[in-house]
């Protein structure tokens, strides 16, 4: 990567703040359209493949077989809330809470899981890639929660096409109205028990379907650039040596680099967008260099803020001027509000008798998906909640872990555990959270970070609509498994904190009216036209699908618009 050095200029055509899933796209699009672009990243550089130190580690390579020691966890009291992010093979991609603290209003919880390095969470994301449907862009208007989206599915459709073609999404076209088809690479297999479950659901429950998960993995005989097909190792979150899944590191940043127009600057903490009172627009970005500790101003004609939902909003809130005493673009008072995520940790699991003579090969980094089926039409309208949820799940044969539940020991017991056990399947629902004004973040000037910058205090909670929805999520999961003949079906509901879905969004929402929103239909700040926010902060509602594909499509669309506007000399 062409890294910033002493000879690099401080003035550019464009600045992109952040290198995660949307920042990478902004960098690629702006560079490919000929703009000299400075790409700022607050963390260290991570070079594709070279900087994936644990990609080939086995459990026995670790002293505690993948468990974290209490000493290791001291730095990660919040990041460890997921239960999976801080294990030794992944921990290096997550921030230390001790170095990057945030706060929670008493009695509330917010789980802010993140990594500060080139590539951001595009390295550790779940890779599930679903389009939103026309219904999702209309729901706020229809049921009156939040404000209306300024765009519709048709505005984004060509950009979904464009993004899918570049990142590679494996999946199956099904013609579901609530989950639009896409340009897919060959779908991954469902296994035999998942096929049975699909048959049962589709014949026993009107309006419900099961399809293989749509994931940003290359499949079949395909290659994209230097990226090869998925090898079913399921170690994606460590970085993929085959480049089989999409990340900024494997895909967009190399594309941006190939243009010769990108300058990448790691260790650069962007903390303020500088406002030019005379010109009525932003003139640049103020940065602390983590190495030299110096503050540097970079200037550009346009700025893409892609620091992640919460961090982009933090930068805007911290960008105060005479014109914007409450943060850049915050005339509406909505900046930092309406935090959404997907609530989950509810579902059911059970055992399947049969198919003892069948097995599978590979550790498929994917599962099945049951698209939303509630509140789609009159018949599926629920009395006690609006919107809906989808399920993600999978079936597999049990391994030795089944021995934990058997109260047994000795030679026969041990030797029996080498054979594959019975099939089990489980599913977890991911549900929509409504945009509540009071689910908010604020800047905390009493507790500054090590750079002397304000930290964030969050105040978020799920409410009646989500709590009612959770009951339905558990019940329906169990009913579908039972109808398919599963035995010993149990529902589960574990504690959920907003953010735990790592789909946090909504803090600088798009809208039609500057009085109630921060961004317009092109992701431009209403009152600062040369600043674009195209990460999760822009979201006006949350739907229930994994959001990254939508962030990417929005970014490509906004970049196209920004460059056209720049050429028309409107920016």
């Amino acid at each position, binding site marked *: 990567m062409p890294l910033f050095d002493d000879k690099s200029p401080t003035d550019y055509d464009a600045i992109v703040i952040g290198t995660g899933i949307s920042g990478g796209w902004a960098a690629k699009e702006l560079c490919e359209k000929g703009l000299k672009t400075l790409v700022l990243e607050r963390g260290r550089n991570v070079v594709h493949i070279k900087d994936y130190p644990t990609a080939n580690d086995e459990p*026995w390579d670790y002293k505690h077989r993948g468990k974290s020691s209490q000493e290791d966890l001291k730095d990660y009291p919040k990041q460890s809330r997921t239960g999976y992010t801080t294990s030794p093979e992944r921990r290096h991609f997550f921030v230390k809470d001790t170095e990057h603290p945030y706060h929670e209003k008493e009695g509330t919880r917010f789980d802010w899981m993140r990594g500060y390095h080139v590539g951001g969470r595009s390295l550790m994301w779940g890779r599930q890639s679903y389009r939103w449907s026309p219904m999702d862009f209309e729901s706020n208007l229809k049921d009156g929660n939040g404000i209306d989206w300024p765009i519709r599915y048709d505005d984004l459709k060509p950009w979904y096409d464009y993004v899918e073609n570049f990142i590679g999404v494996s999946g199956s076209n099904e013609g579901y109205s609530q989950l639009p088809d896409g340009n897919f690479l060959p779908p991954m297999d469902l296994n035999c028990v998942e096929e049975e479950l699909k048959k049962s659901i589709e014949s026993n429950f009107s309006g419900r379907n099961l399809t293989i998960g749509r994931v940003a993995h290359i499949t079949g005989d395909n290659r994209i650039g230097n990226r090869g097909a998925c090898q079913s190792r399921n170690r994606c979150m460590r970085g993929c040596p085959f480049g089989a899944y999409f990340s900024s590191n494997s895909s967009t940043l190399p594309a941006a680099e190939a243009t010769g127009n990108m300058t990448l600057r790691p260790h650069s903490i962007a903390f303020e967008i500088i406002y030019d009172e005379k010109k009525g627009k932003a003139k640049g970005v103020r940065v602390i260099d983590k190495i030299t500790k110096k503050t540097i101003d970079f200037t550009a004609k346009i700025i893409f803020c892609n620091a992640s939902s919460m961090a982009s909003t933090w930068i805007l809130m911290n960008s105060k001027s005479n014109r914007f005493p409450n943060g850049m673009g915050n005339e509406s008072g909505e900046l930092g509000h309406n935090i959404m995520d997907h609530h989950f940790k509810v579902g059911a699991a059970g055992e399947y008798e049969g198919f003892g*003579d069948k097995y599978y090969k590979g550790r498929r980094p994917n599962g099945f998906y049951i698209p939303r089926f509630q509140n789609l039409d009159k018949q599926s309208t629920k009395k006690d909640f609006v919107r809906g949820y989808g399920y993600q799940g999978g079936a597999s044969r049990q391994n030795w872990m089944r021995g934990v539940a058997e109260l047994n020991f000795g030679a026969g017991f041990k030797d029996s*555990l080498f054979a594959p056990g019975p099939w089990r399947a489980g599913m977890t629902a991911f549900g929509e959270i409504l945009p509540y004004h009071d689910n908010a973040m604020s800047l905390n000037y009493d507790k500054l970070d090590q750079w002397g910058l304000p930290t964030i205090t969050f105040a978020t909670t799920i409410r009646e609509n989500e709590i009612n929805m959770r009951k339905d999520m558990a019940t329906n999961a169990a009913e579908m498994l039972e109808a398919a003949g599963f035995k010993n079906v149990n529902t589960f509901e574990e504690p959920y904190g907003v953010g735990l879905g790592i789909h946090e969004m909504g803090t600088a929402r798009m809208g039609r009216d500057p009085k109630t929103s921060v961004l317009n239909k092109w992701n431009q700040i209403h009152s600062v036209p040369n600043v674009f926010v195209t990460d999760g902060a822009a979201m006006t509602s949350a739907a229930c699908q994994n959001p990254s594909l939508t962030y990417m499509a929005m970014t490509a669309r906004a970049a196209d618009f920004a460059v056209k506007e720049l050429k028309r000399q409107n920016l």
Partner: protein
Amino acid sequence: MKRRDAIKMISIGMGYTLSASTLATMASSCKTAPSITWVPSFFSPLQGRLMEDLLEIMLPATSTPGAKDVGLAPLIDQIVKDCYEAKDQEHFRLGMESFFGQLGDEAAQDKASTAKLTLLLEKHLTKMTPEFQAAINELLSSEELPKLAGDKDLYLRFSFIKNLRTLALSGYFSSEEVATKHLNYMPVPGPYQGCIPASDVGSTWAL
């Protein structure tokens, strides 16, 4: 049966069933065991040896390796020492002491027999009456230590055995020897195949 009643029954020796053969082996064979070749950091040297013996009874060497072959006792010693929270660590220690305490003087004299350790495992696992097992499950479902001394002791001892079995199984099957040579180890499987004859695979996938 109410939990209290079930617990009363074990205290008078009725919570589990003993076979004649176990009782017979129990009466024989007390020998001084060899000491261990590793230095425990959480266990005492005596506990380390008892653990090694106990784990080998749980997962003995057959045509596949045993607990000792894969260094299970030293691994568990390390995990409990480094990975357990202080409270859980203390509970584990108290449960272990209570469990081995049932060996009486034999443990202290470093000559607990395999038979007696086997008997103890049976008592805590395979030979529990369903009523007693249900009572124990109810007891363990609480996050808090019971207040009554008898309940507390049972809670600690049965939690210990539960945790130890989990540690033992995960440590055993995640060992390089077992995973790469006795399970089906395929670090780079290639495209996922969803439905193939189990006979083409054989043992469970290692990863």
